[in-house]
């Protein structure tokens, strides 16, 4: 094993897949010299050159649209959308073409397109550069969604995403990227299958489902609760689509209690969907009402003072757990 940062893990995943498959290339804004504004693609231009690393015009629709045409004709594009909110600009291409074409053509057209996009709050980037759009994206049929919380998951899942023959979006968290999160990854090559959740911490009293930055906050809360004799199990679905329902339900079977921690406003969030799944498929296993620890129903505020209280944290989670345990 070796210890690398979350940023380096993303970089290595792309680097290894580009080395492995000459049809893999990158299209995005400012991906050459900067390696994207947060630097996760740095060094790839020097290694792979202008043919395979394409700096696009500020044209998100054309980035996704051209990736569709390239994928339909034998290439395996990786598109980089600078911040998750910019997905709104190219949403028609994602919603109407990318995620529907394989179905609408009766399987004739395969679209192996990866979308990489940093999401999440915590760096005072204000309302247009800070949101998690997980719930919104989960409602798009045909789109696989990767949400890695650790360097190990980021590298293994992103490699699988690039190899997948269907559209996959990989949303990685800006605070983990900028914060320099470190973790162990194997020296040798590995991939992680899409659709397989991970138990980040075993416990017996309450199940907490969290993704991205919230996984780390849940783990910190679990430490504090352990001191008070409450044993928290932390489940990281790792991909929201396909969603590993079984790992979540198996955990609820063990603990009988569920809290979902999610860096989104509640309405239409990934937490809403996970809560619905457990309510529908495992209600009888619950010993207490399910809870959601989400963000307030507002855009992400700019001021660090406001942003800090907007983001769900350990204290919010501990409060919710204490209400049902």
């Amino acid at each position, binding site marked *: 094993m070796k210890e690398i940062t979350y940023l380096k893990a993303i970089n290595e995943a792309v680097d290894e897949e580009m080395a492995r498959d000459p049809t893999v290339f990158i299209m995005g804004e400012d991906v050459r010299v900067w390696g994207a504004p947060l630097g996760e693609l740095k060094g790839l231009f020097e290694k792979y050159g202008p043919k395979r690393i394409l700096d696009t015009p500020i044209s998100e629709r*054309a980035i996704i649209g051209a990736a569709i*045409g390239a994928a339909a004709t034998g290439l395996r594009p990786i598109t980089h959308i600078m911040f998750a909110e910019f997905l709104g600009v190219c949403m028609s291409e994602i919603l109407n073409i990318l995620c529907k074409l394989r179905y609408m053509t*009766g*399987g004739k057209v395969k679209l192996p397109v990866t979308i990489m996009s940093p999401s999440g709050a915590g760096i005072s980037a204000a309302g247009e550069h800070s949101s998690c759009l997980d719930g919104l994206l989960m409602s798009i049929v045909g789109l696989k969604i990767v949400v890695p919380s650790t360097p190990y998951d980021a590298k293994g899942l992103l490699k699988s995403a690039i190899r997948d023959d*269907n559209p996959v979006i990989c949303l990685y968290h800006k605070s983990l990227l900028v914060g320099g999160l470190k973790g162990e990854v194997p020296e040798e090559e590995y991939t992680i299958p899409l659709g397989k959740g991970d138990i980040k911490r075993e416990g017996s009293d309450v199940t907490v489902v969290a993704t991205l930055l919230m996984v780390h906050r849940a783990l910190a809360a679990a430490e504090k609760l352990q001191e008070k004799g409450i044993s928290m199990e932390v489940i990281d679905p790792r991909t929201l689509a396909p969603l590993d329902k079984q790992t979540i339900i198996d955990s609820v079977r063990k603990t009988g209690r569920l809290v979902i921690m999610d860096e989104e406003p509640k309405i239409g969030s990934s937490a809403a969907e996970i809560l619905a799944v457990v309510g529908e498929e495992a209600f009888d296993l619950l010993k207490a009402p399910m809870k959601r620890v989400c963000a307030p129903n507002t855009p992400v505020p700019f001021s660090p003072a406001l942003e800090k209280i907007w983001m769900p944290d350990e204290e919010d989670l501990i409060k919710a757990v204490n209400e049902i345990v």
Partner: protein
Amino acid sequence: MAIEKEKLVWMYRTMVRHREFEERVAKGFAKGKIPGFVHLSQGQEATAAGPMAALRKDDYITSYHRGHGHLIAKGGRPDLMMAELYGKATGIMKGKGGSMHLTDPDVGDLGADGILATQVLTATGAALSAKYRGTDQVAVCFIGDGCINAGSFHEGLNMAAAWKLPLVCICENNIWGESTSIYDSTNLTKLTDRAVGYGIPGVAVDGTDPIAVYEVVAEAVARARKGEGPTFIEAKTCRWRGHFEGDSQSYRTEKELDECKKRDPIPRFRKKLIEMGVLTEKEADKIRQEAAEEMDKAVKFAEESPFPGPEELLTDVYA
């Protein structure tokens, strides 16, 4: 530019097949046998056959909701296309796409979209792919006049121009974007002026003259193959029928519609080919008869085919 006789006959046959196919689609829709939205292109046959005569089999096209003729001309099988329009299991897309979205990558048609100007982007990507893979393939996108005001048109042509991609954008200007005149939705009088903004050639042509269309497209294709970048072509054409089947066309005057019908490309091209000595009356009749028989068979195939079973509902989607 001299065009070989075989190509002229192919263009004529293709236009007649296109017309015969769509006349049967109109009937099938009127009888309630073809569900959904149907957009016909009677009057626009020359802008499908002309460009396709300038393309190779391995070149790509993208199309839009009025796209039956583009796929026929690119080599799509009318029986499978008709079955698709009927929503049958034997359809070219297993009955899951329908009239607006006819796609057959096996003949290089990467798809017809009802989201307008998106087809410029898909073709830009196919052109990028050809350049990346080091082939000399060309991608052609067909759009209607209304598309030139959509953002994707701008993003696609700008990107293709900046990267000198082998793209040809053919705007079938029939004046009507659904019920709205193009001249009410842009301040341009010459649509080709748009090309100036992308630093690429813009050429206007009589879109009811297949030879003229062929000539300008062939030049643009040659330019694209040489790596000299995209061309925007405005083919001035005519749409006889409504935007969709069932549209009463209350927004048009009878005079305008009559003028439009007088520009019917098929009898004019037939007359020209006979004058040129390329076809005899008898040969031209035979082409028509063969096309009618082919399309009757396509209708029979579609009508006799089964609907998809419920087991088809959940296939071809992976998340």
